[in-house]
């Protein structure tokens, strides 16, 4: 039996040390904010921003549905999941917004022309000043 194949106490320490290093660097990546940015989403009605919120980019997010009443009995329902943002229901005549594909990248939007409704991903958040909503 070749002696060199056997693990020596010292080797185990080296391996452990490397493992700890890998672990720490992963932890560091996570806490250093690489994954902590939020995507900012805006909902506009007739050109006015009526709602703006952020979706966290780190992993799974809780599914949420947003119903927006667009006036004169109109509505659009937006669903936000970790896969992206979609309009899942609306009572507009053409339903083009409901058939629009899911959006998930800044710059993408879903538009409902009859309701003058737009949901748009506008980009990354403003760091410490991130809010869930604004009272006006």
């Amino acid at each position, binding site marked *: 039996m070749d002696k060199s194949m056997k693990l020596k106490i010292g080797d185990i320490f080296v391996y452990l040390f490397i493992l700890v290093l890998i672990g720490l660097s992963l932890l560091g990546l996570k806490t250093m904010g690489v994954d902590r940015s939020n995507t900012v989403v805006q909902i506009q009605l007739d050109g006015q921003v009526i709602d703006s919120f952020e979706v966290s980019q780190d992993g799974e997010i809780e599914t949420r549905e947003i119903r927006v009443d667009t006036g004169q009995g109109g509505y659009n329902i937006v669903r936000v999941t970790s896969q992206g943002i979609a309009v899942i229901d609306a009572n507009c005549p053409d339903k083009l917004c409901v058939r629009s594909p899911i959006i998930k990248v800044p710059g993408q939007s879903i538009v409902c022309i009859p309701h003058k409704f737009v949901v748009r991903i506008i980009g990354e958040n403003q760091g410490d000043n991130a809010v869930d*909503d*604004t009272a006006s």
Partner: protein
Amino acid sequence: MDTIMSFRVYGDRSAKKAMNKAIDRIKEIEKHMSSTYEDSDVVKINKAAGTEPVKVHDDTFYVIKKALEYGQLSDGALDITIRPIVELWGITSDNPRVPSKEEIDEKLALVDYRKVVLDEENKTVFLEEKGMGIDLGAIAKGYAADEAVRILREAGVESALLNLGGNVITIGSNPDGRSWRIGIQDPRRDETGEPHFAIVGVADATVVSSGDYERYIEEVYEKTGERYHHIFDPKTGYPADKGLMASTIISSSSIDADALSTILFIMGYEEGFNLIEEIGNAEAIAVTVDKEVYTTEGLKNSLIQSNDHYKIMD
């Protein structure tokens, strides 16, 4: 008028059902209490002013009763009989104007919440004088929010964020377990370019702001710099002018938050804060025209400043 609403309800399918139910309830309340919808209780009451009592829905009766209580508590700062003044100025109409002092005084004689007669047994409301009129705009949205929250909670919703025409209502905390971070709109955001001047963390609470920035006569403002806004002082008949440009209330009750933010704006910060601390169950933020920010005791140290144009005072 349609209130722009957005509902964020977290969870499964049953949450969606509850959300639609809550929205139907809000629309029902809007229908009963609108100042413009032809068949609303409010329009009927106003039409019958000086003539006869009008039977109203239970929810309208409750809201009017609550509003009159606030009228008394605030010594008339919140007065739902302000309608003749609102109409005279027409700030939210297509043709707003600055009326003469004579016109204002004439209409002001019709403003007195003590001349609203309630009959608890028959659920009727009567305005004593012809020409009187009520407007529930300062409080109906708050009531609607409380009802929406009740429906969502009954359906088991544990986390939600609603926005009813700028009033932000939260149920529970954010799904990540932290409190909701709510920005308070910068009342001069057109000048500063900042969306909010401060951020508060809340859970199970409503945040309501009032101010001179929401609606005002833009034409006059552009010419003279004078801001004739839509929140009237029932004592003068002119837009409230007690040194504030914005007020915010945080409370677990939306109807209280709605009423108190208007009251604070009309009363000014010293008198307003005294009243709010006396009533309890609410915290307040006031922004003066000099961009100084005052808060009630419970918010000291917890308000996060989010831009440098304002100065948070001790």
